[in-house]
């Protein structure tokens, strides 16, 4: 080992950076979760109090519920649209494919802050673009950012807009890896287009679908910037847009309960882990 020290030194930056910015914060947040700390003064040991408070806090459970609702509102249409777009992009009749791929991927690299401001203008209660459209066709105005479901729809639509293209590109890669011979064999056996879609495309894509479901689960559980910019640190009217991470942020950085914020972080870790396992089982289970 010693003779290769130069090489170890060469790869050391990753491990050093990981230890400083990855390992240490993880360990410290676990330590912090059992303490009371306002961020500046002294830390005092708090036992399990932070976790007890979290489990009995109505706002925490509301945040969990909101996060799941927004996840459902956004992930289902997002993956559905992504699959359709990928299928179309893969079709032989489409021209300028690269242009479309870039176009669909573009929302993903747009600043979320800018996106949230634009969506805020679309969904605004007064003088919002959607309400302007509704009014001009004689429909009643919807108070998007006051209704609990309206806030969730607004946040979800932002997620859908941003991530559909990303998932489509991933599905496209999956589609391209399916051997063309399978389709040809199916065609010879007299299978219709729909049959080969459900019997060949979907089963062959299953690992890719599983990947997108799990990444969008993690992404959905970590939703933060969209609601924060759109409805503010308190999650908007009735805290309907309060997600788990927004709650964590508010409790730590606005209300200065850093120990409690760390506890919420670990609670969220458990939820994501459980939820990913459930998803994995569900998507895997379909095959048998």
């Amino acid at each position: 080992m010693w003779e290769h020290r130069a090489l170890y030194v060469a790869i050391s930056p990753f491990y050093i950076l990981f230890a400083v910015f990855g390992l240490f914060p993880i360990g410290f947040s676990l330590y912090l979760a059992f303490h009371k700390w306002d961020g500046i003064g002294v830390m005092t040991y708090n036992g399990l109090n932070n976790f007890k408070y979290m489990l009995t806090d109505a706002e925490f459970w509301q945040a969990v519920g909101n996060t799941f609702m927004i996840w459902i509102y956004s992930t289902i249409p997002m993956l559905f649209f992504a699959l359709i777009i990928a299928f179309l992009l893969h079709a032989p009749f489409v021209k300028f494919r690269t242009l479309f791929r870039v176009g669909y991927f573009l929302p993903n690299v747009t600043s979320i802050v800018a996106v949230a401001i634009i969506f805020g203008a679309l969904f605004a209660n007064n003088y919002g673009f959607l309400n302007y459209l509704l009014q001009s066709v004689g429909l009643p105005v919807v108070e998007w950012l006051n209704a609990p479901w309206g806030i969730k729809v607004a946040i979800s639509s932002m997620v859908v807009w941003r991530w559909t293209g990303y998932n489509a590109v991933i599905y496209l890669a999956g589609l391209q890896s399916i051997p063309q011979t399978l389709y040809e064999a199916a065609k010879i056996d007299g299978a219709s287009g729909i049959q080969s879609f459900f019997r060949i495309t979907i089963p062959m894509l299953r690992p890719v679908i599983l990947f997108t479901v799990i990444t969008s689960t993690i992404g959905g559980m970590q939703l933060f910037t969209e609601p924060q910019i759109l409805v503010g640190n308190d999650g908007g009217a009735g805290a309907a847009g309060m997600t788990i991470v927004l709650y964590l942020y508010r409790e730590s950085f606005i209300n200065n309960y850093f120990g409690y914020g760390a506890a919420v972080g670990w609670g969220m870790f458990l939820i994501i882990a459980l939820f990913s396992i459930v998803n994995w089982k569900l998507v895997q289970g379909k095959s048998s």
Partner: protein
Amino acid sequence: MIRRKRTCWTAILLVCVMLVSGCSIWPGQNDSSSNKKVTLTLWYWNRSIDDKLIAKAKEKFPNIELTAQKIGGDFKAKLKTTLAARSGEPDIVALNDWIMELFPSEDRFYNLYDLGAGDVEDQYLAWKWKQGVTPDGQMIGFPMDTGPTALFYRADLFKEAGLPSEPEEVARQINNWNAYSAAGEKIKEKFGGKVFLTDNIGTVYNQELSQGTERYFRPDGSFIGMDSPLVKQSWDTAVSFKQKGLLANADGWTPGWNAAMNNGEIASFVGAVWMKQVLQEAAPDTSGKWRVTRAPGGDGNNGGSFLSILKSSKHPKEAFEVIQWLQSPDNQLEQYKTLNLFPSAPGVFDTPAIKEEEPFFGGQATGPVFAESAQHVPEAFFGERYPSVHNIITRRLNDIAKQNANPEQVWPDTVHRVERELQR
């Protein structure tokens, strides 16, 4: 093999040299070379101190190397993380009206009384001065600007609704929250519900509360209780404004608020002096139609900032000299002219700059109204938990205003949430 290894080491060495030379890790090398200049850093946010005044301070104190850094983004979060890290702290720092959150960490700041602040105490508004003093009597914040409140109203809409429209007359007739609410009903009736008395429920609650002498806590830190007459009364007024349909539900700092103001859908609001500029920028089309008068229910304060010296500073004496000069009554007046920062030194209230007539307010000189208000702000103790309690209450009021939550159910729930909050 050996040669390859050597190339490898050389490459690593080269990278290291480049990294080190790129970011100078030996600061302060030129400290010894210059002729004993004292270096001071100052953190402030955009428009909290006039940049030209800072430039003047550099001339005024030739022995001080003043490095003023405009901190963007979330100023409070950046300050707190710096305090937590205990390194890279500035010597002088501007604090906003959340200064009380830092009272438990008073040992991180110099007691300005020890540096001679007591000598100039009588030049500043007493209530403002006390906001920078902790319950233990340590002064951690030197007064900068203040935010005395007054009633902003649309003279044309008031007139059309058959209400008084001259500032003195409005102040005389609409002198309490009931009279203000009655005026709102007149406006609602006259304009068929198209014009609202005021912007949102938070404004009403916040302003009535700020007119009283007690908040949620006593100076010894004990909780006064949610049955405090002022809290309950402010809550009831805010709820009644909602029930009578006097609120436009337009939250501040949103495009909706700007549009509602510009389109004449909001006839009035009780706001701090700095709202003058916010309003002028939001509603240019209504120029000349607004007036300002003393607020119904009394005077209050909203906002205003402070300057502090951190304990890590090596030159507290020089830092205090700079602070005292920057916020001297004359320089506060200067910053009123340049940045609209309202002075906390009443000595300059009688100067021509304050009495200037403003076209946006129909040629009214609004300065004297705010000056009068500033001198009558009741002294009140906030306490470090004021923001979290206040936030819970205004959040729940918003549920009533925007989601038609039943106030009878929301109140006990709010009391419960506040009690839980205080147990942590």
